[in-house]
């Protein structure tokens, strides 16, 4: 018998694990997943999407957390006509017990297609494909088992952070605890959309920025330190003995020429005031070099992808802040930022766009921050200055 999905079948071949195999596993026992295969095969034939725009569905008391989705091929694939997504807020650092994961699986076996994204790009557990009448029961069971929905729409999106002190020696603050605390504190902002557009918070506990906070988060928290990084000279000697070319590959690649290597004595010296804390030497000599002891974070603002006015990377707002519970200073700063954005943002304008339209100067005034050189690459070159 010829297969119904010849194009998708091609994607079962090859060494990388196949999502088509996963779809078929669910299709074997779930009618929604079976019809999803048909819808997607049709897209592979027609080279266009077969999902219609939007549709408002949700759970009682929330304005977001569920994405409504309808297919434009209901006659051919009736079981996939409604294919809504539930966003479930993940635990910090994406750590799980198998018990918790199996609970989610059981809930999704009962109320949905059995297909998931582990995880979505923002960080949530994505439960893909359910009917309108299953949304509330699914949520009720999730909530009974300790899970809540994430954010969607013009709201605070599910905050996420890197693995941090749980399993990283470079963590300059507790990214897991900070993200958990902020998520709990701002439940209302997460579940009841009230802003011009979405707002993302991401925390990376060192400048390697493993969760891409600087590119993706409107409010970006990146760990750093204020004192000198720490060097263990005997470990430096061991690296040298093993043949690492410390002169060229470590000192030679320091972007600020803050490192000097004495080959004869196998000694690495640092001018701490020149170090820009880029993590190169630390990441390459993990046993010999570590971040300093006076740790905290840099806060940056405005990272986003292209829609509407082009992409932005987050800009430095607070060069150094201590990050300790209950995180009062960070929360106050967030509230000031949201107040200003609420007042001044246009519909579907991310905060970077509001700032770039109205000027960083005015934004800083509104949130009570003093201008400092760390905020810019260089001062202006034009003479068109307002006083």
């Amino acid at each position, binding site marked *: 018998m010829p297969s119904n999905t010849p194009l998708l079948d091609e994607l079962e071949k090859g060494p990388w694990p196949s999502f088509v195999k996963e779809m078929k596993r*669910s299709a074997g026992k779930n009618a929604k997943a079976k019809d999803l295969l048909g819808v997607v095969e049709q897209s*592979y034939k027609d*080279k266009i999407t077969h999902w219609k725009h939007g549709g408002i569905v949700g759970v009682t008391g929330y304005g977001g957390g569920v994405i409504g989705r309808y297919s434009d091929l209901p006659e051919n694939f009736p079981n996939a006509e409604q294919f809504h997504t539930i966003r479930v807020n993940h635990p910090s650092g994406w750590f799980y017990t198998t018990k918790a994961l199996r609970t989610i699986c059981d809930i999704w076996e009962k109320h949905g297609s059995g297909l998931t994204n582990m995880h979505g790009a923002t960080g949530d557990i994505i439960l893909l494909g359910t009917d309108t009448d299953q949304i509330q029961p699914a949520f009720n069971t999730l909530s*009974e088992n300790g899970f809540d929905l994430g954010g969607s729409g013009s709201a605070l999106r599910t905050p996420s952070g890197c693995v941090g*002190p749980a399993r990283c020696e470079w963590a300059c603050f507790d990214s897991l605890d900070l993200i958990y605390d902020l998520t709990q504190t701002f439940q209302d902002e997460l*579940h009841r959309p009230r802003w011009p557009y979405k707002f993302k918070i991401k925390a990376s506990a060192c400048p390697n920025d493993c969760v891409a906070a600087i590119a993706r988060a409107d409010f970006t928290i990146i760990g750093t330190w204020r004192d000198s990084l720490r060097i263990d000279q005997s470990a430096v000697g061991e690296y040298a003995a093993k043949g690492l070319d410390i002169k060229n590959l470590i000192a030679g690649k320091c972007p600020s020429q803050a490192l000097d290597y004495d080959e004869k004595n196998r000694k690495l010296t640092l001018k701490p005031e020149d170090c820009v804390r880029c*993590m190169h030497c630390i990441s390459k000599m993990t046993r010999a070099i570590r971040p300093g002891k006076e740790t905290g974070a840099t806060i940056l603002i405005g990272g986003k992808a292209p829609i509407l006015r082009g992409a932005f990377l987050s800009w430095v707002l607070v060069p150094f802040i201590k990050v300790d519970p209950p995180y009062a200073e960070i929360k106050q700063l967030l509230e000031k930022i949201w107040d200003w954005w609420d007042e001044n943002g246009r519909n579907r304008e991310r905060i970077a766009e509001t700032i770039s339209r109205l000027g960083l100067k005015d934004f800083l005034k509104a949130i009570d921050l003093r201008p400092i050189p760390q905020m810019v690459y260089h001062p202006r070159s034009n003479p068109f200055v307002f006083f």
Partner: protein
Amino acid sequence: MPRTDIGPPDYKTMLPETIVNNYGKWKYHEILKPGVMKHVSETGGELFTVRAGSPRLVSIDFIRDVCDVADKYCDGHLRFTSRFNIELMTPDKENVDGIISDLNKLGLPVGGLGDCISNIVHTQGWIHCHSAATDASGLVKSIMDELYEYFTEFRLHAKLRIAVACCINMCGAVHCSDLAVVGIHTKPPKVNHEKLASTCEIPSVIASCPTGAIRRHSDKNINSVEVKNERCMYCGNCYTVCPSMPLSDPDGDGLAIYVGGKVSNMRKPPMFSRLAVPFIPNNPPRWPEVTDILKKIVEIYARDSKKYERLGEWIQRIGWERFFSLTSIPFTEQHIDDFTHATETYRATTQFKW
């Protein structure tokens, strides 16, 4: 009534014992072999992590399979990374090979750590998105099949991050990835005049366009809008605001490739990805033109880069003019920016290469 606003489960209830005991006390880590690293704590504690790739779009049975491995070797704990990898952790070195072989039995590749290609961060595509110009899962599968050994072996001088977005919304840091594949529309929306007024507010539709391409219909008897085609940049913002302005088009939709971005602050500051190939038509199920060009770029980069040099750093060193000649990618009018702040990209020096 269900409880609302309980927030996510407390991460502390999810951590394996070794992590609880060494939380914030890690001293250093080493990568032992592809996909395996060891963390050592100030207390002397050790933790071995095995990282495996995943297709991200997975069934609950897949999750249960991985849970079985975690139950067998990891005291019932596991984690995921921000790029959809699975990580299994154990304090016992003896468990590592068992974990690897069980993961391989499930068809999962072990790798993605250190100087190699990590899993591809991506979006929904034709599986679930209403504005997708292409599929994401199928592209990722096709690309990773071609570059598989770059995930499971150390073949590069630095980390290489690939991202796929199925439209220019670019969910997922696509705009700052070493290699980025982006679904694009190249035709203006087709306005459904019959439905528009009943489904959408005309002033918000007009206001939604970043380039001012939308205006009221010139025929007063038609209660709808018109698009000035030459001003449209196919962003799909009007469609997000109004379902009666679809952009999807089997021939007009396709892919662009951007290169040289990164988010880490290591050595050079974060960089945006820059346009390398403006348009490749959709060619499912395998998109061979896309995988060919990506593979070519990766091979040339692997050969010509210096140790520790990210793709964007390599291009900065050799210069874009050399990048285009090395890869034989044609330079076209689309490569010259004409959007906001475009002039910042025009060269203002006599220093360049032939």
